[in-house]
């Protein structure tokens, strides 16, 4: 079974360490939500795993294979990223954007083959953007854009999907739609999903496990009910919070108490 295994990872920018000794496993078929205050190092962790930020120490392995030693195209066949506030070139069509997900498979010379078309189409089908295939991306709504970007990530046929605040710019309905899609990709198709989320209640509802990051260190990992507690969260966010059971599901529901 595929496991993304991050161990004692340190990483940062210009000599300043943002992550210190972070160890975290993400298994195939599960969604792990990465939560924590601004500046905790959530995005840095995603960017370190995807090879954007050079790491200072520790290791990142996939089934024992050292990801840091792979060439970038080899890594991109295993790990796909749905970034925050994605920039898409306006004049390209959805089909063209999704096909860009095949980049790590394509040789320098020669076009996309049947295999690539099939993979891109399957990715579009799973994210329900087939009907938008020939539309320009600047004609899409926020939710449609995000689904197209997820389709591009799926076209990479990855084993690990990383999401960096992938719902941040969407309204509530589209946030839920994207989270449900991501959850089904993990549960039904066996992807290992690591998603940074701002909304703790979304983490409680859609993640199988939650990792709480603060000050560049992992404070707690485990089932949502074990991590999203008033004690953990108040300390991590430096803000008193109350946690009550969700009226329908019984999962943790986090409410800030304010400073008053």
């Amino acid at each position, binding site marked *: 079974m595929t496991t993304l295994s991050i161990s004692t990872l340190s990483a940062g920018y210009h000599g300043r360490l943002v992550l210190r000794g972070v160890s975290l496993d993400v298994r195939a078929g599960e969604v792990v939500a990465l939560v924590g205050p601004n500046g905790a190092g959530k995005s840095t962790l995603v960017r370190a795993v995807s090879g954007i930020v050079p790491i200072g120490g520790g290791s990142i392995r996939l089934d024992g294979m050292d990801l840091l030693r792979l060439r970038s195209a080899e890594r*991109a066949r295993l790990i796909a990223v749905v970034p925050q506030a994605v920039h898409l070139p306006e004049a390209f069509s959805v*089909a063209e954007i999704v096909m*860009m997900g095949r*980049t790590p498979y394509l040789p320098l010379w020669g*076009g996309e083959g*049947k295999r690539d078309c099939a993979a891109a189409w399957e990715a579009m089908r799973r994210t329900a953007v087939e009907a938008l295939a020939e539309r320009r991306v600047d004609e899409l709504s926020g939710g449609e854009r995000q689904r197209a970007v997820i389709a591009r990530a799926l076209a990479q046929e990855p084993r690990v999907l990383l999401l960096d605040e992938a719902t941040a710019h969407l309204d509530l309905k589209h946030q839920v739609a994207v989270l449900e899609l991501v959850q089904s990709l993990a549960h039904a198709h066996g992807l290992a999903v690591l998603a940074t989320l701002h909304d703790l209640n979304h983490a409680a509802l859609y993640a199988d496990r939650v990792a709480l990051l603060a000050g560049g260190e992992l404070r707690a990992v485990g089932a949502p009910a074990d991590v999203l507690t008033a004690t953990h969260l108040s300390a991590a966010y430096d803000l008193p919070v109350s946690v009550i059971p969700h009226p329908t599901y019984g999962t943790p529901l986090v409410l800030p108490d304010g400073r008053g």
Partner: protein
Amino acid sequence: MPEEVFRPRRMTRALFGLCLAALLFAVLLGVSVGAVSIPVTTVAHLLLARLSPLPATPNYPETFTTILFDIRLPRVALMGLTGAALAAAGATYQGLFRNPLADPYLVGVASGAGLGATIILSFGFPAAGLGLMAVPAGAFLGGAGTVGLVVIMSRVGRTTPVTTLLLAGVAAGSFVTAITTFWMLRSPDGLRRAFSWLLGGYAGGGWQPVWIVLPYLIAGLIVLQLNARALNVLQLDEEQAKQLGLNVERLKLVLVGAATLMTAAAVSFGGLIGFVGLVVPHSLRMLGGPDYRRLIPLSALGGAAFLILADLIARTALAPQELPVGVITALAGAPFFIFILRRLKRSVF
């Protein structure tokens, strides 16, 4: 049908046909019109006779053959190569910098070539034999060398951020242009010749310039075409391109290198011809979409046709006086460009 969706847009095949037809038209017109007019049918006969192994039909005046093969055809060929190089390099730079205002001269080719040519001209080589090649050689070295320095100066660690590259290019351009001005004023004799080179280049050099520029154009176009899909992916942003497995740093250097060598070779004989690298790729982008795998070859064809026709106007409008071809490209290109921009009214980038 899934595969249908991923096919190139229907427009592009028609557009290739259109560009090829335009190029053929431009070549035929370009070689037949001038101080001595050669009918197009005669041109066709002479060309076919030259290409076929049969002995030539000697029914035409000897001067036609001389004008066609020794004067007009090499000039048309050089203009075609220059236009193709500038338009393809312009399309590449617009993609690389993700900036619609980028043209082939953005990072210092033009100012560097100007300095190289000016320095060589101030030595007063005779305008014949080896001297004829010295100015283009100086322009080429100046242009390619300046861009090389700009790239080295804009390295940050192991990366070359495009904004740094752009700013370093602008700064180096001003610096090098200042040296050129200083050099020109120091040697008043070189001033006029340098000026005329900057505006019009050397169009009358026979076949030799064609054979010199051709390999740069072919090699450059092959390199650009090989990296065109990667250039599409780079239209996301650099971080997404890296996450899709592209070696972004190498890609940027390869693209700048290829576009620069093509531009430097073209400029060294053609002079600094403006607007081709801007108007041609943008017009074709508006018609055929943003995919660089088609935009780059389309731009090469379109640029060749455009510059051949501009050169035709430049040498016939005020005949016997010749206008610098850059004047025509700007006069014809700018209004046409604005016309298309207003028709389209949405982003094509």
